[in-house]
């Protein structure tokens, strides 16, 4: 089972991953966006980490709703409300259970992803974070590692797509041939689950 500690670790490792990859995310956001995705998420997850350190919520749901609200209050841009909603709705779906199973998380995350789809209006194939999140949620029933692999695959698969949502859509045909920054950061977030479970290679065994 996954306790609040696991979820705090998830946020912490995601924050570290975002710090590590910020330049890359911003570079991806340059040819088809406005060159801020890395710094946006750094600001947001930095604030999340600081707040969780200072006053650690005691349930999985509280960790995520708190984190989501913080992202909304600190990130701005498209990714702030979208990631904020993702975590907040996932957290809400987890309720106030002190521990949850990986299956429960998968189900809650699906609720969160649906909320993102509703909020942003993006469907799979529109070249957005959705393209990493949807396959990740589908694979999460199997294992963290499977989810991570699915998210990474989904992110890479955005490259040949024509963007229909977000800034990249302004470029029309010229958006083709570039990997979507939001799908890329979504893969980092999902990879954080495996990492937080302590066994990034053999995530299947742990976390339940």
């Amino acid at each position, binding site marked *: 089972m996954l306790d609040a500690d696991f979820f705090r670790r998830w946020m912490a490792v995601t924050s570290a991953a975002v710090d590590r990859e910020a330049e890359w995310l911003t570079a991806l956001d340059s040819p088809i966006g*406005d060159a801020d995705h890395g710094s946006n998420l750094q600001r947001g997850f930095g604030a999340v980490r600081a707040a969780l350190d200072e006053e650690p919520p005691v349930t999985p749901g509280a960790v995520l709703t708190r984190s989501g609200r913080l992202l909304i*209050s600190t990130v701005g841009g*498209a990714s702030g409300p979208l990631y904020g909603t993702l975590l907040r709705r996932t957290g809400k779906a987890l309720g106030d259970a002190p521990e949850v199973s990986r299956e429960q998380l998968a189900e809650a995350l699906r609720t969160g992803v649906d909320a993102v789809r509703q909020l942003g209006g993006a469907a799979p194939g529109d070249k957005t974070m959705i393209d990493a999140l949807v396959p990740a949620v589908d694979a999460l029933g199997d294992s963290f590692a499977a989810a991570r692999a699915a998210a990474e695959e989904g992110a890479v698969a955005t490259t040949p797509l024509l963007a229909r949502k977000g*800034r990249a859509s302004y470029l029309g045909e010229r958006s083709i041939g570039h990997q979507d920054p939001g799908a890329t950061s979504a893969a980092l977030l999902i990879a954080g689950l495996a990492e937080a479970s302590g066994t990034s290679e053999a995530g299947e065994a742990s976390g339940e």
Partner: protein
Amino acid sequence: MLINVPETVVADALRGMASAHPELAVDVENRVIVRRDAPLAGKVGLVSGGGSGHEPLHGGFVGPGMLSAACPGEVFTSPVPDQMVRAAAAVDSGAGVLFVVKNYTGDVLNFDMAAELAEDEGIQVAKVLVDDDVAVTDSLYTAGRRGTGATLFVEKIAGAAAEEGQPLERVEALARQVNENSRSFGVALTAVTTPAKGSPTFDLPAGELELGIGIHGEPGRERRPMMTSGEIAEAAVDAILADITPRNPVLVLVNGMGATPLLELYGFNAEVQRVLGERGVPVARILVGNYVTSLDMAGASVTLCQVDEETLRLWDAPVRTPGLRWGM
């Protein structure tokens, strides 16, 4: 770049605005710029905001006759709902607040959240989306057109109506009308360098230009070998006229993206006026300058806004802001 560190660029700018404009209440920590005399009894509050890097938009348009408050986000990043809620609360006199929102996913989502939160606090909120850029294909399946130069016309004309004490529905309707009657098209001669990235966001060789760019340093729809000012004016005006056929006179904004010298901008205006003349478009007013910018990008945009007697009167009404001022 003339900065301290990328992380403090917006806060530093707000400190600098605060000292240069004592007539504005600049809350550096919470990132809202508010008219000192707000709320004014019975007056609709006009609130806008967006990513920084487009100055004087929006903070430079706060003042009598225009915005009641502005919320600057990080560079090219829409502000967060907290800012907008705070701004709405600061300017609402009970007559309601109009959010002027440029149509970008980030801006729309954050302002939507803010509207919900503000309504929870008992503030009546209306929203108007600005989406004037004809370079972007408009469709139900995309993010739609982005908002650029027309924002200035919407904020000025709606601001004048609010200043006269017109009610929220009327101010909102006017803002919507101005947006519907406005179209823009922009070109870039250089890419932009954001403080966070520190190098140009894309590679644009000296002998080429990007047609159909926005105001966030994104590439345009098409790259072309360098064109003359006259050819660019034709491309911009014709792209607009392919989408709208003004029957009434238009306001013309010949807007610099930031690094194009005013000398060139005036020369470009001469060509824009020539083309408008050749196409038979009657011109009511012309504004030339750097108003809706994209940091250090070289280039320009053209915005046409068809006006009637009432909107022209409101355009001419006195305004007193750091970025636009006349009649007082």
